């Protein structure tokens, strides 16, 4: 599920907005804070899910996208890479403009869960299902 800092006034994002955020093309929140993208290391299930379902890219395409974007100035910062779900959660907790993806079991109330297209992960039709579990 998508989580943001508790001080972030955003409660809901459209799938499209989310996609732009994760591709780095949207760099600021409506309140003016810079968006910081937090991701797991390449190969981790959460990252794979985001790349596949949200960005529609594989690892290389995603890398190229960011290298290109940074080069052209279209993208301001590359995503922060963290080694564990706890690290992701703590990062989001510490940085007001951070956004990340976590499994349901890794979320606690130090961070805020954002609805996607008015849906929560438990709701039917939530688009960011962890398909890894199926793959496994």
């Amino acid at each position, binding site marked *: 599920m998508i989580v943001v800092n508790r001080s972030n006034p955003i409660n809901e994002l459209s799938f499209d907005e989310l996609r732009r955020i994760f591709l780095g093309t949207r760099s600021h929140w409506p309140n003016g804070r*810079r968006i*910081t993208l*937090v991701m797991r290391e390449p190969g981790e299930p959460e990252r794979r899910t985001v790349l596949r379902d949200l960005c529609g890219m594989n690892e290389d395409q995603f890398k190229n996208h960011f290298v290109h974007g940074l080069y052209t100035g279209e993208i301001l*910062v590359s995503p*922060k*890479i*963290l*080694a*564990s779900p706890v*690290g992701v959660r*703590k*990062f989001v907790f*510490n*940085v*007001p*403009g*951070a956004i990340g993806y976590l499994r349901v079991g890794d979320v606690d109330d130090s961070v805020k869960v954002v609805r996607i297209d008015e849906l929560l992960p438990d709701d039917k039709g939530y688009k960011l299902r962890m398909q890894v579990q199926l793959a496994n």
Partner: protein
Amino acid sequence: MNYFRTIRATSSACRFNWRIDVKKQTKFEIKRRSRYPMPRVDRWLSAASRHNAVLLLFVVCCGVTVIGALVIRDMQQANTEAQKMYKSSVNGLQEIGELQYDAQETRRTTLYALTTTDSNLQVEYADQTRDADRRVRNGIGEYGRQAKGPEELALAERLNRDWTAYLGVRDEVLASILEGSTSEAVNLDLKGGVPAFERVRQDLNEVKRLYGEDASREQASLAESSRRSSSRMVGILSFTFLLSTAAVWAIQRSQMLGRMQLANLQMEFVASVSHELRTPLAVIRSAADNIADGLVKNMDALLRYGAILQHQSRSMGELVDQILLFASTEDRKKRVPLQPLPVEQIIETVLSDTEVLVRDSGFTLDIEVEPGLPHALGDLAGITQCLRNLVGNALKYGGADRRILLKAGAFVPRDKFPGEVHISITDRGIGIDSSEIVHIFDPFYRSPRVHASQIHGTGLGLALAKRIAESMGGSLTVFSQLSAGSTFTLHLQIAQGDDLQMPASEGRQSRMSLT
């Protein structure tokens, strides 16, 4: 017997009247005894003076023990106080030190995050700084709770406020670092973080200063109390020393006085005895010389000389007997076998024993005996000796009135009082001064007035009488007024049922059935 005016019951009517009279007398006696409790106090005093060394030592020991306990308690108190202060000061300093360290740690770990671009490490540093700031918050809270006085309370509030302000900046700096905007983070820290942290640092220094003042105040009070306790201890020790010195001095002095007194008394005794012995000896010697030299020519003169010799040798014998008897009663633990004796028998024995003496002295002996008296418990020979001494004294010091009253009565047993038979000898002679009454039962004691009046004696009679009375489980008391006369009373135990079963002579059997 015509020398004695015996008031013996002759008819029932007379006995009745006389009994009333005796009751009155008894009451009077009781009153007098209660109005004059000196004998008991005197006995106690003399016992105290006999054991004064032991008593003094006991008092000193008690004093030293109490003082020692006080000193130990004082020292323990001071020690506890010092320990408490040391502990609290160490604790307080440690807490303040930890607070300062944790505040620094909060800032330091925040800035450590600048040294790396690895988000994982940065998150770890973020964790560390948050842990440290939690500890600081707890420390500030604790300080606020323990704050004494408005100054510390205000400081605690200010510290809390400044710390919160710094944490606001810290969070921003941390966020910037994690976002990767290092220069922004440094700018933020320089602009907001440094001054905010400086305020916190000043607050913490203030905390330390206040604590130092508090501790030095406490230290001063502790020093004051320790000074007080040490001066108290010095005082107490000097008091103990003085007390001990005084006690040792008193003991030595009393022993010395006692020895001197005894030596004096013995000197007087020796002088008196040698005088008492020399007079009859001189008479005997000259009488014997006269007879031996053939100066005694006729029978009448010889008989006269014989009477002189008899009288003088008898008086010498009596003196020697007294001295020997006194020596034999020196051992106070020795008890004579006691038996129940009818009071009449005692009176009769005493009368026959002292008849000649009284007659020769030209005295009249009045006798009052309460009828139906219980048997007294005692030794007849002892009682007789005791009463003979008392009668002898009454004759010696009886004065011009030449009347002696011998009275016998009893107190019935009541409640806890076991009852007693008492026999008293009253004279109307020179009496005894109240200052001397303490000493009259001391062996060898003789009143200076008696010395002055050249009345002969050894100073053993009353001591002997008292010892005999005590050896029979009884006592001897005195009531006397100067120039009005003296009453010596021999108190004897009443014979109980068990004692009465002992066989007695015929004369007493009928008496026993009467009682």
